[in-house]
């Protein structure tokens, strides 16, 4: 699948072809080297290099105190990250699957997210919770969910979901340098996807959406792996004379409202696509924002395309049946424009 890259690098910056996993590692390596307060910990991340090999080699490079294996204690290690962040470190804690976040949710919601506000701004919690979600690998219901809406609902968290290797690198580095708790959700099927990635320091600011493909007939707002599906759908739509603009939110919180609304005001039609279950999904927030803010510019009601209201099934064909596929996006986009 072809992905148009729009890295925020200064013109002339050299790029390298990297996988999404390698790009994430590039960011971790850069931040570990740059700032001694940064440390990485989680389950199986040291010698083993992480369940998805994102941290491969970092243990050998930075040693056991900077890259630390932990016991299987999701609540404990996330809470430890909160305490470490409050007292001067910049921890990056890896939760192997976003589905495990339920085990750690008190520390995420009641502690990390609310500490600053609750204590009147005395402290900040500069931690990154790296995790991954999504279906498509036969991991079934407890290892395949898309749970970003849980986190977007909590004041005090930032939520990042990159779709390309360049964004993965730039957003992770920016998240580590950010002074607030950032939930950084990768997609398990993107780890091997490739793209050009700026070498050296590369930062993508949080809160800036990216137009991955410009177009005039409708706006598709999406994120994470569905961005790739939307771009494929846009290629097919173009064959039928429909030019779709594809906006990759990249950061769900803070939300780049202006880029979304500006696009919709030009195209007059909006389709929001995400892998997560449609009911109560973040797409509802986007669609409602568009309806409230750009109603007079719309030629049709905003539409949402999301996962079916089921857990993720195991078998490959069943798995595909419950999350939006390229054909679904093409079909709904045509209905919207037609």
């Amino acid at each position, binding site marked *: 699948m072809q992905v148009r890259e729009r890295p925020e690098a200064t013109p002339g910056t050299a790029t390298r072809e990297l996988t999404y996993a390698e790009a994430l590692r590039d960011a971790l390596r850069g931040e570990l080297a740059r700032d001694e307060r940064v440390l990485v910990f989680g389950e199986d991340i040291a010698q083993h290099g992480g369940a998805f090999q994102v941290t491969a080699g970092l243990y050998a490079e930075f040693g056991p105190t900077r890259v630390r294996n932990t016991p299987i204690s999701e609540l404990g290690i996330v*809470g*430890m990250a909160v*305490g470490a962040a409050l*007292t001067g*470190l910049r921890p990056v804690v890896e939760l192997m699957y976003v589905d495990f976040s339920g085990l750690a949710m008190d520390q995420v919601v*009641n502690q990390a997210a609310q500490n600053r506000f609750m204590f*009147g701004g005395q402290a900040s919690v500069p931690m990154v919770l790296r995790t991954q979600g999504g279906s498509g690998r036969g991991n079934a219901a407890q290892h395949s969910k898309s749970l970003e809406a849980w986190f977007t609902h909590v004041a005090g968290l930032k939520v990042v979901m990159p779709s390309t290797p360049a964004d993965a690198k730039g957003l992770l580095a920016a998240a580590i340098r950010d002074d607030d708790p950032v939930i950084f959700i990768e997609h398990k099927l993107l780890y091997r996807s490739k793209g050009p990635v700026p070498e050296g320091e590369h930062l993508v600011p949080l809160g800036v959406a990216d137009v991955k493909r410009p177009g005039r007939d409708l706006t598709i707002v999406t994120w994470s792996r569905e961005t790739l599906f939307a771009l494929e759908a846009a290629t097919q739509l173009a064959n039928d004379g429909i030019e779709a603009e594809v906006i990759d939110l990249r950061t769900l919180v803070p939300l780049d409202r202006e880029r979304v609304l500006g696009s919709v005001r030009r195209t007059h039609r909006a389709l929001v696509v995400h892998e997560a279950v449609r009911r109560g999904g973040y797409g509802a927030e986007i669609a409602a924002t568009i309806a409230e803010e750009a109603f007079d510019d719309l030629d049709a009601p905003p539409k949402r395309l999301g996962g079916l209201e089921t857990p993720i099934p195991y078998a490959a064909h069943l798995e595909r049946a419950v999350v939006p596929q390229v054909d679904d996006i093409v079909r709904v986009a045509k209905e919207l424009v037609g």
Partner: protein
Amino acid sequence: MDRQPALAMYQTMRTVRRFEQRATQLFGENKIWGTIHSYAGQEAVAAGVCAHLRDEDWITSTHRGHGHCIAKGADVGRMFAELLGRETGYCRGRGGSMHIADTSKGNLGANGIVGGGIPIAVGAGLTAKQLGQDRVAVAFFGDGGLNQGSFHEAANLAAIWRLPVLFVCENNQYAETNPVKDAFLIEDLSQRAVAYGMPGVRVDGQDIRATYDAAGEAVARARRGDGPTLLVAETYRYEGHYYGDPQVYRTKDEIETWRSRDPLVIARSWIVGERLATEADLDAIDRAVDEEIERGVRFADESPPASPIRLPEDVYASA
């Protein structure tokens, strides 16, 4: 023990007791919103432990946290101001009784989630170890917290990495309304430490000498790099779980039995018995504390209400 630390601990205990009495009174006058959880009866624990801590050492505290806060050096005026929802309060009215932090004194904050602060203290211990700092972290929690998964996970993490952490379980005999005998099959809660390979110490939490000595050993052990300790202090909560708790789960006899071993009375008789100070010296401390408390209440009362203007801006450190 020397006169100075003994009197300082007595003063802390007296300040906590008077703070709680005054807060209860203010609650009765409808000046405090929400709820308060009194620390009265448990003063010897916070005072004995925090006597070994420096400003740069950290604590995490609980919903019953006023005592820890004062023992770690907080200003009672700013605490009252927080309870009254004033701009001068520690958290500018955002936190209230259950969420006071004073990061300038290493108090990382009280916590409304039972056991919520325990892993956070372990994270602070990790910072000290990682950056090679001579600092320790103390997690205060109750018998209720000892049954939360957060304790078990955090205790194990601190133990395997020998982090400079002290786990202080204040067994005040009730987790909210549930008596400790209904929540544990073991009688000596410090046995829990064995499972994590750390020392477990059980002390009389009403006796300042016992809490001071045990905490001193545990803090020294943490500073030496020998890892964490679980300290279980047997103590008692004089008031109900919260202001207005009908307390149907315990008897007046039981309360009177515990009150007959009041930590302030024990501290006084010890100090006078050891000739570290006279009754008159202690009376002078009492009067000074009463004045400080009244000044604190006045400060809070005269402070402006917390402003709602900046509420959304306080959520994130960087926009």
